């Protein structure tokens, strides 16, 4: 083997940077160029790798009827009370709509190759359906069920009736035609909680309502002045990524 021990000059001198693009996008939706890197790759000040979020108005995935049903559900999961506004006003349904419109909605990052088998509980979710299909089929099955028993949609039931049905779905005590009621409940509960507690940039947690409720200060990034203040209410107002963004 040959011996050669040269070190390229440090940051004070112009650095050698060679980016050889070997290929194009790996998938249609996400570019992942193979590159050959030599020298220290440069970066542009204030360039960042932003989160996926959508600024458009209106529903991006749900039909008006689906949206109405979902808003009714999230308002029961997170009811308005003395602690906070409700799930609907907090934007949980909008959050789920944006998630379904984005990469999560199609499970584009997940292994979705068959064969699909039910498996043991230890083997996890083995459904062949992607979230977009789960919501579309699940909400339709829920409304069909309510139509058959009460001749109205879920959103038109009384809050107590809605709670009762949601509890039955959660416990696996009610069966819809064409979709598993418990599975729908679990997906909606998980995504609603994500929306209520995630950074507001994703459409939920309006005005950081959940963070204020808990006392979670959000995207603050430095507690060196606070770490030694034990067992104290620090009274920190939360900060969101949006605010970091606004600071520039």
């Amino acid at each position: 083997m040959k011996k050669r021990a040269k070190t390229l000059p440090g940051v004070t001198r112009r650095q050698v940077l060679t980016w050889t693009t070997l290929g194009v996008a790996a998938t249609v939706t996400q570019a992942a160029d193979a590159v050959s890197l030599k020298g220290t790759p440069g970066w542009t000040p204030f360039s960042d790798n932003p989160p996926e979020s959508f600024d458009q108005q209106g529903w991006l995935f749900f039909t008006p009827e689906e949206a109405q049903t979902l808003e009714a559900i999230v308002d029961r999961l997170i009811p308005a009370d003395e602690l906070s506004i409700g799930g609907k006003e907090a934007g949980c349904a909008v959050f789920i709509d944006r998630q379904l419109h984005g990469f999560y909605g199609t499970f584009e990052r997940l292994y979705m190759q068959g064969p699909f088998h039910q498996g043991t509980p230890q083997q996890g979710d083995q459904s062949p359906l992607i979230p977009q299909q789960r919501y579309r089929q699940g909400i339709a099955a829920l409304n069909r069920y309510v139509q058959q028993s009460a001749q109205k949609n879920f959103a038109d039931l009384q809050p107590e009736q809605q709670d009762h049905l949601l509890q039955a779905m959660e416990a696996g005590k009610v069966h819809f035609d064409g979709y598993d009621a418990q599975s729908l409940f679990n997906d909606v509960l998980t995504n609603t909680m994500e929306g209520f507690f995630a950074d507001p940039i994703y459409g939920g947690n309006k005005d950081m309502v959940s963070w204020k409720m808990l006392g979670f200060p959000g995207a603050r990034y430095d507690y060196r002045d606070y770490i030694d203040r034990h067992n104290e209410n620090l009274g920190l107002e939360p900060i969101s990524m949006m605010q970091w963004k606004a600071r520039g």
Partner: protein
Amino acid sequence: MKKLPKTDVVVIGLGWAGSIIAKELADEGLEVIGIERGPWRDTARDFNVATVTDELRYVMREELMLRTRQNTCTMRNNPSQTALPMRTWGSFHPGNGTGGAGNHWAGITFRFQPEEFRLKSHLTERYGANAIPDELVLQDWGTTWEEMEPHYMQFERVAGTSGYAANLNGEKRAGGNPFEGMRSGDYPTPPLRQPYGPTLFAEAAKNMGYQPFPVPSSLVSEAYTNPYGVTMGPCTFCGFCTNYGCANYSKASAITTVLPALMRKENFTAYTNCEVLEVLTDSSGKKATGVTYIDSSGDKWEQPADLVIVAAFTFENVRLMLLSKIGEAYDPVTNRGTTGRNYAYQTANGVTLFFDNKNFNPFIGAGAVGMGIDEFNNDNFDHSGLGFLGGGSIRVTPIGSAPIGYRPVPPNTPKWGSQWKRAVKDNYLSTMSIGCEASSYTTRTNYLSLDPNYSDPHGRPLLRITFDFAENDLKMAQYCTGKVAEIAQSMNPRQIVAKPMSGHWNSVPYQSSHVVGGFIMGADPSTSSVNKHLQVWDVPNLFVVGASAFPQNPGYNPTGTVGALAFKAAHAIRHYYLKRPGEMITA
């Protein structure tokens, strides 16, 4: 397939192990090419302070993890079941991109104890061969503490590890971990300051006669410049640590401590978004000739090399060896073959303490800030008559409390509605937990193999995990969690909830990414895959480095040992192999 010009060294994977070896061999003057399956990661852009505090993206949607669409594992609890793919990561988190899983790790940096490297011998000497439960297949590592220690030192110096030495060149000092092996040097940076939860725990443990110590942490406690000339900034206890990249250059990773220096070497090149398909050998099977890889446009390349270093995550190290037919695949029925044997995991236990009048400000935290005790870890206590071996590291490490994932409430609280909301608010600030990360000892039927039913996008079989907790480990979990609960009781909370590991291994909830074994090191080629230099038996120009080399798993985090093994392999190559290429049996 196009054949590229030959290089001296090709390194597969640019996480901790691959980056360290690439740097050491580039320093030796060799032409080194590193091939990384994922993207290039850069702190300033990818972990920008304005976008990194994003629990949805980094925890729920697993931004830094390998996409399971690219590659996943199948799992089953025992050989009679049909394994199914893990479609989303749960139990553990393989990383993606430069830095690998070392970008999203917690930073906890233990050294294993001297007796762990000769575990079977040690336990036999202390308790007799009959005391080792029949289900366990324990092995020695084929190396010693004296051989490992200098390389632990090297890793800690590169990572800037903070901590307090209890055994410095034989001098015993109060305040550190009294069970650590003799150190030849102090930790590079002093211990981190502690939040309230760990402080309260340490007081309680001390009152019970235990010896608490600050958890050794590769989140540096002060500005630090490592031997490669790379500078890190002090940890700010931001609470976005485990699962996240660090915006402060505080959490040591290959991208903050090695790659900035490595990339300046003219004799190093990194290929990113390129996936290695196979390690090539010549017709004799005793010489590696290079690798084939596929780039993101689907073009295949052959990269010939004199030395091949496989340094990917545990799973991919083993899968690549199986796909490349290196070594004999392990068969649990005949107990023959070594590739895939001695897969082990870890036993996660915990006790949650609900208080009424305390405020832990749980958002102040970091992956590796905390206090621990080791009285019930490994063989630090007398196991005579207990009916099990092993133990766990007991500690309070508040990693941060972003609320999608952190919403502690007492058992039987509803999961939604006003009553749920009240419980979440009442318990968020006033709850703490004590963890016990415990050992996992290998059994004959816990192993890794190629899956017969599921394949990756290139048509190659996925890796199949067959694993369940050994009875030994479940008994140990009960005992050790009971000890944790005693400490918790002495702290007088309103309510204690103890959760020892029980039942079958479940791939859904997160436990730890400490998956080990499958291509283990040892002194005997019939029961190990690599020798003490991480050199593959019978293929002397091939090295496989990582936690895949651990013959079983102690109650400690693996990264410090992975780093030490990387330096150990690099040292052997630099000082012995290059002078006389061939099998290093006696070196």
